[in-house]
């Protein structure tokens, strides 16, 4: 919509509070972090200007490189495995099978449960001696595969990643909210034409949510993947040998060391990586202008 002169005042009044909050709580603190990232500072003594030395240190640190790699993998898995899974579930549930309300509520539970509990459970599942996973493997005669999942240098990261991929409730709820706004008449027409549920999903639902909630979810999931901290912190604390570390965990540890400079530098890098992701995802889902067109078609029906 074109901005009318009479709208200009109210527009800024509406946008104002959000922008002020963003400035005070994001822009200024982030600039502060960026400034600190150029310094050597332990929080007690006077800060010393270091130029980009903190960044050089980071790129020389294997643990940091590993953290960045892990986060990128995490973001990709989240965006391109977790979200599609969530989409499948959203489509299934939006066809309102028996008990769909119940299931939709249940799927959201992990979001409600404190992260501590989730991490403690999965530690118990992966435990080498008493763990459920090894127990199952042994009982089906695959005991040779049993191992210390979270302690193995090769197995720890996949173990941390895999269990988490299946918690899809968060994104499912977002997509379901969108799917339910699709006009029923589409599906009615398709059903008359003899299209199966599967065909309807492919030809109606997915194209219609693709540039709205699907894009939202892929972006969100990737960003959440990049920000991953709590689960790793409580499951493995980045171990073994930093193989499950993430950028935020790395940063947190540097904060514990009172190494504010390096911690801030890693935060800056996280933001940069994230911006690259957001832009790339938007490019992948093509320009936004088409969104309007699709929706117009939908509304026109």
């Amino acid at each position, binding site marked *: *919509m074109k*901005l009318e002169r*009479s*709208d200009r005042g*109210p*527009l800024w009044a*509406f*946008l104002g*509070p*959000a922008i002020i*909050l*963003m400035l*005070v*709580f994001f822009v*200024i*603190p982030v600039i*502060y*972090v960026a400034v600190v990232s150029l310094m050597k500072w332990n929080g007690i003594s006077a800060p010393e200007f270091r130029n980009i030395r903190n960044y050089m240190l980071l790129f020389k640190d294997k643990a940091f490189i590993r953290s960045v790699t892990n986060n990128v993998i995490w973001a990709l898995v989240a965006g391109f495995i977790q979200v599609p899974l969530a989409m*499948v579930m959203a489509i*299934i549930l939006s066809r309102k099978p028996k008990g769909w309300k119940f*299931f*939709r*509520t249940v*799927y959201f*539970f*992990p*979001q*409600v*449960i*404190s992260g501590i*509990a989730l991490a403690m*459970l999965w530690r*118990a599942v992966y*435990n080498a001696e*008493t763990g*459920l996973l090894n*127990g199952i493997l042994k009982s089906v005669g695959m005991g040779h595969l049993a191992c210390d999942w979270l302690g193995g240098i090769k197995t720890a990261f996949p173990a941390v990643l895999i269990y988490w991929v299946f918690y899809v*409730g968060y994104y499912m*709820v977002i997509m379901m*909210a969108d799917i339910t*706004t699709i006009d029923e008449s589409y599906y009615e027409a398709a059903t008359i034409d003899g299209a*199966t*549920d*599967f065909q309807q999903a492919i030809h109606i639902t997915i194209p219609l949510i693709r540039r*709205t909630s699907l894009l939202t979810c892929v972006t*969100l999931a990737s960003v959440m993947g*990049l*920000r991953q*901290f709590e689960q790793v912190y409580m499951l493995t604390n980045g171990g073994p040998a930093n193989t499950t570390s993430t950028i*935020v965990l790395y*940063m947190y540890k540097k*904060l514990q060391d009172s190494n504010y400079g390096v*911690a801030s530098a890693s*935060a800056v890098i*996280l933001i940069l990586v*994230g911006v690259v992701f957001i832009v790339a995802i938007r490019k992948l889902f093509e320009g936004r202008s088409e*969104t*309007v067109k699709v*929706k117009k078609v939908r*509304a026109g029906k």
Partner: protein
Amino acid sequence: MSQTRVRPSLQGRELILAVLRWFLIIFFALYTLFPLIWLFISSLKTNFEFLAGSPFALPAVPQWQNYINALTVAGLGRMLLNSVIVGLSATVFNIIVASMGAYCISRFRFNGREKIFTLFTAGILVPLNALMVPYFVIITKLGLINTYGGMILLYCAIGIPMSTFLIRGLMDSIPMELEEAAYIDGCGFFGRFFHIILPLSRTGIVTAATFEFLTCWNEFVFANLLVSSEKLRTIQVGIRYFTNQFSTDYVSMYAAIMISIIPSIIGYILFQEQIIAGMTSGAVKG
């Protein structure tokens, strides 16, 4: 002839799809219920059973005492109330500010619109742990340290990027024609916002509100940092009452977690009803 050959195969496929569908539904349901059940069982054990026994065994005698412990010793009641106060206030403010912002970004073209939106999206990325020092200073400078206000303001602010992002996503899918028609009928800026956009983006708003509330409910770092008075502590601080420097009273902690989950699950279920009601009455009517 071809008709008869196609139909059974279609039915076969439908059957497979139905089986697959129910397999997925039940798999995901078990997968998500599993932690809750495990948590509940663990919360009824003794610490000795929890530490030394199998993590998946049932308790010999259910220890309801753990719940009494959690409620009385840790004083969870007051903390639940604080969490509700802080969470609800922050959510209300957050949603008001974010939906107004999202409206502007979604419905109007103006200079810097995309830049502002990118800024908001990038906000989701910011690792808040890195901002402990600046946030502490800001809240102190505003004189809001150790008050509900400080927590509410901070939670409201840190949820802005996410809420704006979610609400904008939904507002984008409201057809422009609707608003244009209203505009031609003489409906002003506020009228269009309150009478057309807000009702139609209800699902997005409820989704965003749910997430914002849960963020507040589950936030611990700043709840601990910004408040020192026991009277203002929130539930996440309460859950950690049973940890100390050297050991953790796991079972009481799990009981506390169970207690902290119950209100949010009930709240969520009630909220879900609202979403459903909103969806049926406010479905896009083209």
